């Protein structure tokens, strides 16, 4: 063949090759994050994974058993317990997946806030303090009933505004060094931050047993700690901003199975 004929054949093959490359990259990039969701279980050492797998070794079950006792306990003021309205705890499967949800007034609330509202209005009992052992025990019990189910929270017109607030906070740069959540948990997953591996930041295992504090911590407390490590001023527990962030993070991790009580560092 002559030179110009060879040239045309080479050019067309090369052009085809480029087109295939570009379209495949666009295709992969569009759908990569939704399929590549990795739970925090896979970012921890095998010795920690063994502790989470065994139901006896897992110290989070101490809170689960305490929660069972609290579920059946009758309040002195009204002689009602959680069991008298809702039945046994094992019938609450799938309830914890719907939180954070919107009340009739239009506020976004957490599962822990709902427990306090229930105690205040229906059982006329004292509310539990935030991050207290009793409240976390009940919260872990309810999340434990949905273990194995996939996170799927729906965004409709009611919580669209809070979802947008959460999304804005996730991408907002905070703190002395101007760090935003997506810089570590989206772009630098798997790299080492001193001695810890950066995970994808999903909350499918919360409220989880954190090894550094030797107790169960809720989502808001963990986000507070993360903010303090980035040298930013944290919001308060049960604040509107953290609830919106929790809503965004549950939507971001849709498809992951719930693993409470997880064991994380």
């Amino acid at each position: 063949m002559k030179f110009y004929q060879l040239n045309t054949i080479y050019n067309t093959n090369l052009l085809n090759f480029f087109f295939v490359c570009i379209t495949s990259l666009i295709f992969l990039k569009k759908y990569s994050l939704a399929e590549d969701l990795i739970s925090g279980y896979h970012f921890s050492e095998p010795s920690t994974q063994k502790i989470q797998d065994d139901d006896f070794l897992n110290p989070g079950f101490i809170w689960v058993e305490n929660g069972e006792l609290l579920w059946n306990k009758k309040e002195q003021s009204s002689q009602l317990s959680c069991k008298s309205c809702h039945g046994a705890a094992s019938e609450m499967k799938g309830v914890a997946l719907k939180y954070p949800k919107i009340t009739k007034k239009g506020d976004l609330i957490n599962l822990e806030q709902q427990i306090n509202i229930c105690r205040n209005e229906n059982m006329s009992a004292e509310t539990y303090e935030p991050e207290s052992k009793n409240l976390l025990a009940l919260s872990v019990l309810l999340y434990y009933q949905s273990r194995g189910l996939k996170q799927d929270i729906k965004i409709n017109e009611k919580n669209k505004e809070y979802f947008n607030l959460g999304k804005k906070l996730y991408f907002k740069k905070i703190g002395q060094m101007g760090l935003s959540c997506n810089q570590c948990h989206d772009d630098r997953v798997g790299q080492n931050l001193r001695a810890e591996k950066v995970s994808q930041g999903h909350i499918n295992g919360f409220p989880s047993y954190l090894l550094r504090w030797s107790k169960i911590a809720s989502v808001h407390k963990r986000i507070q700690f993360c903010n303090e490590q980035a040298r930013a001023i944290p919001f308060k527990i049960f604040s509107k901003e953290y609830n919106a962030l929790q809503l965004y993070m549950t939507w971001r991790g849709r498809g992951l199975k719930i693993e409470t009580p997880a064991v994380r560092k």
Partner: protein
Amino acid sequence: MFLKMEKLRRLKYKKIVKVGENVKIKTLAEHEMETGVRRDNITGVIYPRLIIQSVIAKYNGKIVFKANWFSGVSANPYLAFYITAKESGLIEIEWKDDHATTSYKRGYLKVINEKGNEVLPVKYDL
């Protein structure tokens, strides 16, 4: 009625065993195990030491295993050990504290000989 929230103590082992078999006993206790070394961030006051000092396991009233712990054991401590099964009887585990508060957990172990009958701890002739 107020429920006194006692601390959780767990005990797990294989319930029906043959004579001479080694049984693995697992225990888990709920306790903060404050080391006496940690200080408060703001005031600088030391959190006082409060740990489980000894764990004693008894099999039919006879001491079978003893453990003395110091501040180096982690919080919510787990312990696993073995015993040989001779007769069916009571397994009792006692956790003793720095403030000398003791808590117990008991369980029954059933031991079967080769014919399939239960070996009782008390022997009597009729």
